[in-house]
């Protein structure tokens, strides 16, 4: 679940810049990102602003080409790479031209080697720093943190990724939403790819299931962005401590969960609940077994199963040796920056132990102030108590 970080992703857009940045986000090719960007560019030009197209990828779509007709286009530059002539955005020419607004298609594009930057979104940073407003486009599967998830759903991995921070720092993100049925109709009508590629697209990427899943991911992503922006720009919080608020918002968004498990099938319920919570919070999940003995044969079998489950879920299984579960869990939680602990119902303790030491949840709460604790109910016990057995 840990987002893969590449060399490019070490320095996402973080500096203050002068230009305003608007991104048109889509779930797949053909939803109309470029068309909408050009439409809005036209409207800005008609309102009297100086608008140019820095880079356009119309994919031979007549409607898109027609939309770009009245706008000035900065010619592409030709780059020779391994006997091939490539066409790229001419960043120096855009900066020299210095328009008020520049339209730059496909921000996830990887530039030919030898240019100013490896990625187009980095070119856009330079344009923004020069005080030029930018409109750009990207598909959701290019976002680094979603790349694995989307590859799993669609079976197709996109190699050109951008850090999620690029989307996070845009002043405005516009989601181009289209139902999967409408998108497939557009594809069949030849509005996305030439007719000879339509059938292959329908058989592979453009299925109702894939598009529905991509649509869901896109809507969630934009909802999360909106929530993040609402937190850091809430006027009631004031602007005096903007940096502090941004840090707090980032911390709130980057939760880390720790589930206390034992090598028994009963721990699976805790893992399920913990994983669902981690998914909702967008956080990492650690599973911890504090062991006071070497695992027995049956425990080894369960540990292997837990290890495989953790791998499928993208969680991390940790095994720590110690006699004091609370102290060991607290140490691990501190080391890993845990914000949320989940555990099953603690084992019943003898009267003497109850007198001598507080129960595990209370010890955890006192050892880890500021960390939330959730006790996952054991449904098997509830059902057993209610005696609601029924014949299958």
């Amino acid at each position, binding site marked *: *679940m840990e987002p893969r970080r590449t060399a490019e992703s070490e320095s996402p857009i973080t500096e203050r810049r002068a230009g305003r940045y608007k991104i048109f986000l889509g779930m797949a090719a053909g939803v109309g990102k470029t068309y909408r960007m050009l439409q809005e560019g036209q409207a800005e030009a008609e309102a009297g602003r100086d608008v140019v197209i820095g880079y356009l990828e119309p994919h031979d779509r007549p409607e898109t080409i027609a939309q770009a007709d009245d706008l000035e286009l900065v010619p592409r530059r030709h780059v020779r790479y391994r006997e091939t002539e490539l066409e790229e955005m001419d960043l120096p020419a855009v900066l020299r031209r210095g328009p008020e607004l520049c339209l730059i298609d496909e921000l996830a594009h990887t530039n030919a080697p030898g240019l100013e930057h490896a990625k187009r979104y980095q070119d856009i940073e330079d344009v923004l720093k020069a005080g030029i407003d930018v409109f750009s486009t990207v598909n959701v599967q290019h976002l680094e943190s979603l790349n*694995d*998830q989307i*590859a*799993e*759903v669609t*079976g*197709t*991995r996109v190699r050109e990724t951008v850090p999620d921070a690029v989307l996070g720092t845009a002043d405005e993100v516009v989601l181009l939403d289209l139902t*999967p*049925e409408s998108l*497939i*109709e557009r594809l*069949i009508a030849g509005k996305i790819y030439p007719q000879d590629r339509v059938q292959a697209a*329908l*058989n592979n990427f453009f*299925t*109702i*299931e894939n598009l*529905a*899943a991509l649509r869901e991911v896109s809507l969630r992503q934009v909802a999360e962005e909106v929530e993040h922006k609402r937190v850091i720009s809430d006027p009631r919080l004031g602007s005096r401590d903007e940096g502090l608020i941004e840090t707090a918002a980032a911390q709130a968004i980057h939760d880390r969960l720790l589930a206390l498990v034992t090598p028994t*099938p*009963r721990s*699976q*319920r805790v893992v*399920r609940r913990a*994983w*669902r919570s981690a*998914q909702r919070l967008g956080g990492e999940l650690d599973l911890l077994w504090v062991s006071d003995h070497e695992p027995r044969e049956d425990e080894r079998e369960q540990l*292997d*199963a837990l290890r*495989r*489950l953790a*791998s*499928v*879920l*993208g969680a991390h299984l940790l095994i720590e040796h110690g006699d004091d579960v609370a102290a060991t869990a607290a140490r691990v939680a501190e080391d890993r920056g845990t914000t949320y602990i989940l555990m099953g119902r603690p084992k*019943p303790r003898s*009267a003497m132990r109850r007198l001598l030491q507080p129960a595990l949840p209370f010890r955890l709460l006192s050892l880890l102030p500021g960390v939330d604790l959730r006790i996952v109910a*054991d*449904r*098997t*016990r*509830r*059902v*057993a*108590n209610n005696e*609601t*057995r*029924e*014949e*299958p």
Partner: protein
Amino acid sequence: MIASLIVLVGLLASAVAALVATHLRYRRRRPAKPPTPGAGRILFPFMGGALSQRALDAALRLARAEDATLVPVFLARVSMQLPIDTPLPHQSGVALSLQEAIEQRATAWGIAVDARIERGRTYRHALRQTFEHERYDRIVLAAAERGHDGFDAGDVAWLLDNAAGEIVVLRPDCDTTIRPPAARSRRAPRPARVRAGVG
């Protein structure tokens, strides 16, 4: 002197009585024990966004009769473009919902459950991985209707060749399937592709 001794003994007796009362009250409130894992293990592999309720019920009846643990195994397919050990959040979401549903049903019947998610390039590959990792006595599975996701005749023949233990195959039963919430919402648009005149 005697009076204070009597008071001391009285106090001690009250303290012991209070401790015993607390202990008894705690014991009475202690919930019933969860199902104890049985010695035998019944493997129940399933796939996709749904599982056959009839096959599940058959597996539960067997598990109860034999005092065995039910081992529901969700078979997850990993695209060739991804590493085999890649995390699968989408399929895991489906798998965990279905495992939760199985566990609730099994618990109501007092049967211990030990669920798994197994990855593979194909369902057969995932099954092969399961056989390597798990010990089991029987396998219960639902055959798929033609054109539906599930174990077809070829898979059943393959199982007979490759799996140890008894294999119970249930007839296809599409009307009574248990689906996770996400799968329910995604199934509806399927006919649209046919309407669009594709395929």
